C-alpha cells in the first residue's frame, strides 16, 4: 500500500510529460494530416486522402521563389553573423580588455530586446540612414538579431580552451593570424557549426523583422502568413509541412552534431 502511494508522484510526473508531448505534437500532426485531405477546404474529418497538394506546392512558382529567397537571406545572415559573432567573442575574451562586462551586455542587447521592438528600432534606424527596405535591410536585421547567440555559443566554447594551445603554436613560430586559423578556428568548430545552424533556422523562421524590413518580395513565413490571412486551404498545410520537415531535419542534425562533439 505504502509502495503504491510513494509511486503516485512519479506517475503524475510521467503523465504530465506525456500530456505536454501531446500538446506540443498534436497541432503539428493535425496540420500535417490535413495536407493530405482531398478537398478544397479545411475541416475534420479528413475523408479522402491525396498527395495532390504536394504536387501542386512543389510546382508553385511563388513557393519556390520564396524558398530560394529565404535560403539566400539565411545564408547571408549566417555568414555575416558568424564572422561578427566570433570577432566580438574574441574581443570579449581577450586579455586586458577594459569594460568586458559592458561590452558583453551591449553585445547581447539585441537578444533581450523584445522581437517587435527590435524590428521597429531597426526600421527607424534604416529610415534615418536612408537605407531602403528590402533584401539588404532584412539581412541586416536578421544578422543583428543572430550575432548575440553566436557570441554566447563561441564564448562558452572559448572558455574551455586551454590557454597554452595558442602559446605553443606561437612558440613553434606561428604568427597570431596563423595560430588563429590553425588552432582557434578548429577548436571552435562545434560552436561555429551550432551557431551557424542556429542562424539559418532563426533567419528562415523569422517573421516580425521581415515584416517591418522587407520589400515586396515575400520570404517563406511572409508567404505562408499572407496565405493564411487570405483563406485556408490544404495547400498551405502541404507548404508548411514541407518547411517543417526540412527545418526539423536541419535542427535534428545540429542537435546530433553538437551532442556528438560534446562527448
Amino acid at each position, binding site marked *: 500500500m505504502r509502495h503504491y502511494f510513494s509511486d503516485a508522484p512519479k506517475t503524475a*510526473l510521467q503523465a*504530465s*510529460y506525456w500530456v*505536454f508531448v501531446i500538446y*506540443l*505534437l*498534436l497541432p*503539428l500532426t*493535425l*496540420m500535417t494530416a*490535413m495536407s493530405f485531405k482531398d478537398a478544397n477546404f*479545411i475541416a*475534420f474529418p479528413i475523408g479522402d486522402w491525396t498527395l495532390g497538394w504536394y504536387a501542386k506546392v512543389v510546382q508553385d512558382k511563388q513557393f519556390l521563389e520564396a524558398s530560394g529567397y529565404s535560403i539566400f537571406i539565411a545564408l547571408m545572415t549566417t555568414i555575416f553573423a558568424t564572422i561578427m559573432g566570433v*570577432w566580438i567573442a574574441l*574581443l570579449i575574451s581577450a586579455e586586458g580588455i577594459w569594460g568586458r562586462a559592458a*561590452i558583453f551586455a*551591449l553585445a*547581447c*542587447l539585441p537578444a*533581450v*530586446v*523584445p*522581437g*517587435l*521592438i527590435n524590428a*521597429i*528600432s531597426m*526600421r*527607424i*534606424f534604416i529610415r534615418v540612414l536612408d537605407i531602403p527596405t528590402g533584401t539588404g535591410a532584412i539581412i*541586416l536585421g536578421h544578422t*543583428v538579431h543572430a*550575432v548575440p*547567440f553566436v557570441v554566447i555559443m563561441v564564448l562558452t566554447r572559448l572558455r574551455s580552451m586551454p590557454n597554452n594551445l595558442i*602559446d605553443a603554436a*606561437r612558440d*613553434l*613560430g606561428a*604568427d597570431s*593570424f*596563423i595560430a588563429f586559423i*590553425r588552432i582557434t578556428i578548429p577548436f571552435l568548430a562545434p560552436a561555429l557549426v551550432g551557431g551557424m545552424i542556429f542562424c539559418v533556422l532563426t533567419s*528562415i*523562421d*523569422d*517573421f*516580425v523583422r521581415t515584416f*517591418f524590413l522587407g520589400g515586396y518580395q515575400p520570404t517563406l*513565413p511572409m508567404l*505562408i502568413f499572407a496565405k*493564411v*490571412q487570405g483563406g485556408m486551404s490544404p495547400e498551405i498545410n502541404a507548404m*508548411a509541412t514541407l*518547411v*517543417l520537415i526540412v*527545418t*526539423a531535419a536541419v*535542427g*535534428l542534425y545540429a*542537435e546530433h552534431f553538437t551532442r556528438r562533439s560534446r562527448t
Partner: protein
Amino acid sequence: MVDSSMTETGTSAPRAGPAYAGWIGKITNSGLYSATVGLIANSTRARLILLLAVPLTWIVVLHVGPIYQMARISLLDNYPPAAEGPVYTLDNYRLFFQEPLYFLPFVRSLIFAAVVTVAALVVTYPVAYYVAKIIKPQNRTRALLLLLIPFWAGEIIRTFSVIMLLANRGAVNVLLREIGFIDRPIPLLYNYFSLGFGVIYLIALYMLLPLYSAIEKIPPQLIDAAADLGAGPFQRFRRVILPLSKDGIVSGCSLVYLTSIGVFAAPLLLGGPNSVIFPEIIASLFHGSSDKWPEGAAFSILMLVVSLSTVGLFMRVAGGRSVRLM
C-alpha cells in the same frame, strides 16, 4: 613571453616562420601577406586595434544605434522633421498616458505576458523535473528531443497549426460534436484563450530548457537525505527542489516574459477584436496610412523600458546570483 620568440624570428628577414603546405602556405608565403596580415599579426598594437575597432563599431552602431534613434525620434513632434529643424517635445509620451485607447492595451499586454509566464512555468516544471530526474540517463536525450522537435518549426507554422486544432471546424470542435457533447462549435479561436494557448505553445521551451538544466544539477543525494529525514514529497519539493532550481526559474521566467511581450504574429493570427494587445497598436502606427512614427517610437520605448525594468526588478528580488539569460 611569446613576443620575445616572435621578435627573434622577425629580425631574420625575410620571415622565417614555419613552412606551411597547401593553401595556408600559399597565403603566408606571398609578399602581400607579409606586407599586410603578417605585419598586423606580428605587432601587438595593430592586433589590438584590429581586434577592437570592427566589433566595437558594430556594437555601437548596430546594437545601440537603432535604440538611440528610436529614443530620439520618440521626442520629435514630427517625423521626418520640419525643414526649420527638429522640434523636441514630450507630447508623444503624454499622449500615451492621456489616451486609454493606448494605455489599456499596454496594461493588458503586461498582464497577458505575466499570465503566460506563470502558466508556462506551472505547465513545464513537472515536465522538466520528470526529464531531468526520473527518466533514466540513457533515455534522457531522446525524451528531450521529442520536446525539441516543434521548436524548429517557425513561429508562423506553429501558430497556423494551432488554428488547425482550435478552429470552428478544427479537431477539438469536431471531436466534441462527434461524441455529442456540443451541438454547435465553441468559439475557441480569436480570443484570449486561443492567444494564450498559442503563445504558450510558441514559448514553452524557453521555460523548459533553463528549468531542465537547473533541476538536472540538483544532487540526488540531497533529495534522498530529505526523504530519510522524514520529508514527504511535498516538503521535499518545497524545501529542497524548489529553492535549488531557483536559477532556472528566474532565467526561464525572464526569457519567457520578454519573448511573450514582443510576440507579433500570434496576435495577428490568433487574436480577435477583443484581445487587441499592445504590439498590434504599435505596429499600426508604423504601417498605417498616417505617419505616426514619433508616437510609435515613444510607445516602443515605453514598452522596452517597462519590460526590461520588470525583468531586472524580478531578477533582483528573486535573486539568482548567476542568472544568465541563455
